Each structure stands twice: as structure tokens, then as C-alpha cells.
């Protein structure tokens, strides 16, 4: 058994990493269950990185399962679909599964329980061009299910400059408690392999590796069997269990030895990484026309029945965790894993595409953090940092609000994995400090951008006003000059006569002009008359003459 868990290919190491206890067995005892339909779904429009999808439905509309309800806003943006059939009750702000506890625009759907699908036209895969497939994947709302929710179609274009070498299918799942990827690999291995084949067709890599941490022997066996059954030349690679080996950058490092540098994408190094659940969803979308409307969520922690469920997006957290029968001393719900997750500020929030795990929180399971002590600069955090950063320096600068310096120490390379805070002997919530510094820097950048825009617009307005003023002045000057020239000419004409005569001449000229104008003016409706109308006029005129009435024209 152990020899099967060893990889044939040479593996590399990333710096640091930690070994938190796994707690994964409890939620892998049952197969993936299907969550019952909730009464009401809250489907947030913005569930992925990129632009916010535009709502396509109105309150009162009936929607079908899989119907598009949010259209992509730009290329790096994904779509949102109705998870089941029902009536749109409202499009309103609703609390989100986000550490802020703030609300965002969501489509509220009253579920009718009929599960009526909208049209699914599975396309003929062989006839699709790569661009068609990318568009199809965007239209199906496929985003990375590993937690970062980056729109998948945006990652499926190979770099023009660098040949694609390694396609990594990520079954690492290094967070404690989480088993959704493990279970999906055990139960839906064939779908994952077929999804990986779609990615392979698009990216044309030299190798496809399915990487799985070696604490999941069942998943490794299932994936190996599926690869053989489908007959793809994919390699299932067991990797040593070490948190955070499931992060894309670390996994690529372990498999290929390539280090993704600052602010570069892994495609520039010829490597790309997709989560196993993403591959499965892509297969369902491309070969069955099913958009992404549900995902597997691990329900675990302080519960009586830890297991995985396939849940529709928009299911409220409280309804979903109730399926796992939380124990009475549960005092909160952790969204995500214990290392990178956060306590849900409001359990009425729905689960979204990024929600991979719900953990019932209890003081026994997660004892309150010991009070923060001063940093003694022991350097333990730097030893475990998988990104080769110096968290103690970052902490020093973030704490002092010295954000420029924090950026110099590569704050934005931090992947917020929490390894540093996990080992900190002074119990400093290091990641919290880094998140604080990052969001402050982003806010400043937004302000700077807004100020630059306002400055440009203000200057543009000033320039325009000056130009308009100049144009007006020029026009006035021209008119004045013309007037002066005319006067001069008239004066030259009449210069010989005395001013009294000139005035008289001017009056006479004006009278003449008026006369000419009057003569030129004709009744407008008496032109182009038919013979009949002409005759009628003649008759009327004759009657008028008889009656002794003057012709209106001759009277004036």
C-alpha cells in the first residue's frame, strides 16, 4: 500500500509549511448526499473574481433550473444561473458569506419544488473550436472551485510566448476538516478525468498530472482506476501531505520545481492548475449542457453527522449546517477551513461558488486564541512561510501602518495561508494584520485613482471653458469688425452728402427694402393649385366682386 502512495516522478519541496491535524476521517464515512431543496434561495450575482454580472430577470419572473439570471460583464467575469425552478421574489441586497457581514445584490427565488430544467443542449464536442469551448465554459458560469473562484475560461488560454508544459489537476485539499474534493474524487473520478481531458484539449500541455495529497489513499486509487478506464495518459501523483501543498503555486512547485515569480501567472512558466471539482463541473457543462448551479460542501466540526452534501448555490448556511445536526454548544459557523476560513457574521447568508466547507464552531473544538503578546522575532513564521516571506517584518510594518515598507517586503505575495499565525509563539493574528494592510493599500489606490480622474476631468473642463471663451471673443471681434467695415463703406458712399440727406437716404432705402419684402411675400397656400381649385378661387373672387368686397390682396 505504501509503495503505491509513492510518486514515480521526482518531487520538489517548497519552503516551510505546517502539519496541522487533519480531522478529515469524520466527514468521509458517508457518501456525498444531495441536500434537500430549501424553501428559498438567495443567489448573489457577484460570486467570482471579475466584473459583477448584470441581472437578467425581474421580480415575479418564473425561472427554470439552469436558466441564466446574471450575464457576464466583460471577459474576466462569470455568469450566474438559477439553481432550481421557481419564482423570482426580488432582486435585493442580502447578507453575504463574507467576513464583513455586508450585503450585496442577490436574486431571491421562491422554490417551487418542481426542479424543471431549462433547455439543455449538449453540444457536439468534436465540432467545437477552442474558442467555442471557452465561451461555453464562461456561459456555464464555471469558476475555480478551490476557493479563489477565478473564472475558469480566463485560465484556459495558453500563453503565446511560453509552450504549455504541465497541466495540474489539483486534488491536494490541504486544509484540515475539508473533504469535499476527496469525496468527489472517490465518487466522480471519471468525470474529473474527462473534464481534465477538455482542459488538456484546450491547453495542449506536454503532461497532465493529477496531484493528490498522500493522506487520501482512496481518492488516489479511484483516480488511478478512472484514468485507466478512460484511457488517458494522465499521471496520478501522490504528493506529501504538508499544508499548504494544495495552493496552486506550492503545488506547481512540488510537481515541477518551478517557482511562480511575483506578479506573474503560472501560464508564463508553462504550467496551469485547476481544482478537481472545477474539472468535473467543466465536463458537466461541456458534455451535458449543465451550468454550475451546485457544489459539494463539507459539513463538519462540532456536529453529530459530519458528511458532504451536494448543495445548490443560494442555500442559507443555517439550513445546510442543520443537515449535519450541530451539537447544542455550537456557537458559530466557520466558512472555509480552520486555517483560511472566517466565522460567518450572519448564518442567513447563502452558500456561494467559493463555499467549500462549513464547520460548526465550538469553544471546545476551537479554544479562544490566547491573548496577543509582543513579537519576540523568533523567526518561526519565516521558517514556515511557503512564499519565502518574512512575516515578522511584514507584521512590524503593517502594525505601524507603514504600508510602503510592507509592500517593499512583498506583502502582496502573501497567500494568506495562515501558517505563520499557526506557529506564532506570541499568538499574533498575523494574517489579520496582513489583510488589514492589504485592504488599506487597495483603498488608497482607489482613492488615488479617483483623485487622478477628478484632476483630469477638472483640467479638461478648464481647458474647454477657456477655448469656448476664446472662440466667443473671436466671433464677437469678427462681427464687430464686419459692422465697422459696413459702416465705413456706407460713410464712403454718402460721404459727399450732408448727414441729414444721408439719414433720409437711409430711411428711403429701408422703406424700399420693406416694400420689396412685402411684394415678395405671397400667400403660401395658393401656389401649385389644381385646375379645379383655381376655378373655385376664380368663382369666389367673382362672387366677391359682385358683392362689392375687395380682393384681400388688392386691398393692402
Amino acid at each position, binding site marked *: 500500500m505504501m509503495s503505491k502512495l509513492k510518486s514515480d516522478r521526482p518531487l520538489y519541496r517548497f519552503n516551510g509549511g505546517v502539519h496541522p491535524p487533519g480531522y478529515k476521517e469524520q466527514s468521509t464515512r458517508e457518501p456525498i448526499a444531495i441536500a434537500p431543496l430549501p424553501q428559498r434561495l438567495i443567489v448573489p450575482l457577484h460570486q467570482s473574481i471579475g466584473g459583477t454580472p448584470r441581472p437578467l430577470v425581474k421580480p415575479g419572473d418564473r425561472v427554470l433550473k439552469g436558466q441564466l439570471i446574471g450575464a457576464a460583464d466583460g471577459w474576466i467575469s462569470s455568469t450566474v444561473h438559477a439553481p432550481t425552478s421557481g419564482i423570482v421574489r426580488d432582486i435585493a441586497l442580502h447578507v453575504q458569506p*463574507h*467576513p464583513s457581514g455586508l450585503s450585496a445584490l442577490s436574486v431571491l427565488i421562491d422554490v417551487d419544488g418542481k426542479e424543471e430544467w431549462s433547455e439543455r443542449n449538449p453540444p457536439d464536442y468534436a465540432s467545437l473550436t477552442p474558442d467555442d469551448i471557452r465561451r461555453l465554459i464562461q456561459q456555464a458560469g464555471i469558476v475555480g472551485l478551490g476557493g479563489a473562484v477565478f473564472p475558469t475560461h480566463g485560465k484556459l488560454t495558453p500563453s503565446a510566448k511560453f509552450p504549455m508544459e504541465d497541466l495540474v489537476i489539483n486534488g491536494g485539499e490541504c486544509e484540515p476538516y475539508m473533504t469535499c474534493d476527496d469525496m468527489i474524487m472517490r465518487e466522480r473520478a471519471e468525470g474529473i478525468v474527462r473534464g481534465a481531458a477538455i482542459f488538456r484539449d484546450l491547453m495542449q500541455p506536454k503532461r497532465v498530472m493529477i496531484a493528490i495529497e498522500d493522506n487520501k489513499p482512496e481518492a488516489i486509487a479511484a483516480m488511478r482506476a478512472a484514468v485507466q478506464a478512460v484511457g488517458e495518459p494522465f499521471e496520478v501523483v501522490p504528493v506529501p501531505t504538508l499544508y499548504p501543498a494544495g495552493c496552486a503555486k506550492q503545488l506547481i512547485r512540488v510537481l515541477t520545481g518551478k517557482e511562480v515569480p511575483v506578479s506573474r501567472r503560472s501560464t508564463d512558466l508553462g504550467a496551469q492548475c485547476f481544482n478537481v471539482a472545477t474539472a468535473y463541473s467543466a465536463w458537466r457543462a461541456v458534455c451535458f449542457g449543465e451550468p454550475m448551479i451546485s457544489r459539494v460542501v463539507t459539513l463538519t466540526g462540532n456536529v453529530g453527522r459530519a458528511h458532504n452534501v451536494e448543495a445548490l448555490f443560494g442555500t442559507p448556511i443555517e439550513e445546510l449546517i442543520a443537515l449535519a445536526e450541530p451539537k447544542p454548544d455550537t456557537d458559530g459557523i466557520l466558512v472555509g477551513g480552520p486555517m483560511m476560513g472566517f466565522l460567518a457574521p450572519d448564518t442567513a447568508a447563502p452558500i456561494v461558488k467559493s463555499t467549500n466547507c462549513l464547520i460548526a464552531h465550538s469553544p471546545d473544538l476551537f479554544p479562544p486564541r490566547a*491573548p*496577543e503578546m509582543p513579537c519576540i522575532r523568533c523567526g518561526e513564521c519565516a521558517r514556515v512561510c511557503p512564499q519565502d516571506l518574512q512575516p515578522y517584518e511584514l507584521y512590524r510594518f503593517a502594525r505601524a501602518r507603514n504600508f510602503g515598507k510592507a509592500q517593499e517586503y512583498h506583502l502582496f505575495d502573501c497567500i494568506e495561508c495562515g501558517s505563520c499565525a499557526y506557529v506564532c509563539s506570541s499568538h499574533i493574528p498575523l494574517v489579520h494584520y496582513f489583510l488589514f494592510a492589504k485592504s488599506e493599500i487597495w483603498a488608497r489606490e482607489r482613492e488615488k485613482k479617483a483623485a487622478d480622474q*477628478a484632476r483630469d*476631468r*477638472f483640467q479638461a473642463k478648464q481647458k474647454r471653458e477657456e477655448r469656448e471663451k476664446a472662440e466667443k471673443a473671436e466671433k464677437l471681434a469678427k462681427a464687430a469688425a464686419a459692422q465697422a467695415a459696413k459702416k465705413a463703406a456706407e460713410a464712403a458712399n454718402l460721404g459727399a452728402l450732408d448727414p441729414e440727406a444721408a439719414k433720409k437716404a437711409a430711411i428711403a432705402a429701408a422703406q424700399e427694402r420693406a416694400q420689396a419684402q412685402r411684394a415678395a411675400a405671397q400667400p403660401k397656400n395658393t401656389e401649385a393649385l389644381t385646375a379645379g381649385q383655381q376655378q373655385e378661387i376664380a368663382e369666389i373672387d367673382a362672387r366677391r366682386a359682385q358683392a362689392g368686397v375687395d380682393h384681400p390682396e388688392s386691398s393692402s
Partner: protein
Amino acid sequence: MLAAIAIMALIAVFLGAVLGYASIRFKVEGDPLVDKIDALLPQTQCGQCGYPGCRPYAEAIAKGEADINLCPPGGEEGVAKLADLLGREAKPLDAEERPPQVARIDENICIGCTLCIQACPVDAIVGAAKQMHTVVASVCTGCELCLPSCPVECISMQPIPESIDTWKWKYPVVQLQEATRKAA
């Protein structure tokens, strides 16, 4: 003796010529300090500092005519940044700090007089004569200059609520209470 004086004089003339040339060749247009100060100001162009726009205020600061604590939209942080740049002592803001806001036109009341369009320093109001006007919220700086121009008082300022995209992580607070409770 004469030769030495001549050499010194020649060197002086030569260096003087070099300096004279350099002052023409490398002449700095405008005042770079004004640009630096202007870059720190929030560019709302609101005139609350008493100067007609951010740049005139920056010029006044550079000349030493204006104090650095007159910009309410910049807030205390803006004062601190200016103090940092100019090497002056930071002072408390000489006005109330103002949360971000955006102008909103009540379209039922607007008579389409175009006065607010002329008043807006950043062209954030669109509309035409006798047509309804509206504010382009994404470019509005919330300067309030349109408020006095409206003859029917249909413009109001709305605070911009925090959204998930603009939400900031709070500074981690050391839990002193818990620590003392443990110790007790």
C-alpha cells in the same frame, strides 16, 4: 603673479559660462513642489479651503500663504501626508472631516436649468436645457458645489455606503479585557 590672476579669471569666466548655460538648459518649468502637493490633495475641487480648486490651494501652500490643515475631504490623513512632505508639524484639521458622499438629483423636481452642469468642476452632471439632469455617480467627487446653484433645491448629498468591494479589514485590536480576565 599676473599669469596666476589671469588663470583664475579664466577659470572663473569658464565656470560662470557653464553655470549660465546650465541654468538655461536645465531650467525647471513650473514649481515641482506644487505638483507634489497637488498629488496629495484629493482633487474634489470643492473650494472648502478657500481657494478655487486643489491646484490653487497647492500653490498657496507652496508659497507658504496657506496652512496645510484646510482640506476637509483629505482628512487628518491628508494633513499628515502634507506635513510629511513639507517637513512641517501636523496640525488638527481646521474643519470637520467629511465622509465620502455623492450628489443626487431628485428627478421629479429638476426643471432642467443647466446651472448645476455649469457649476460642476468635473463634468459629472449630464443633461440639457429643459431636459432632466442626472449625476454620473462614478465621477462625482461630492464637492457640494452644485448645491447652491440649484434654484429648486433638488440636489442632495448621499453618503456612499460601504460595500463588499470597498470594505476594509479593521486594525487588529489587542484583547486587553480577555487578557486581564485570564490573569485574574
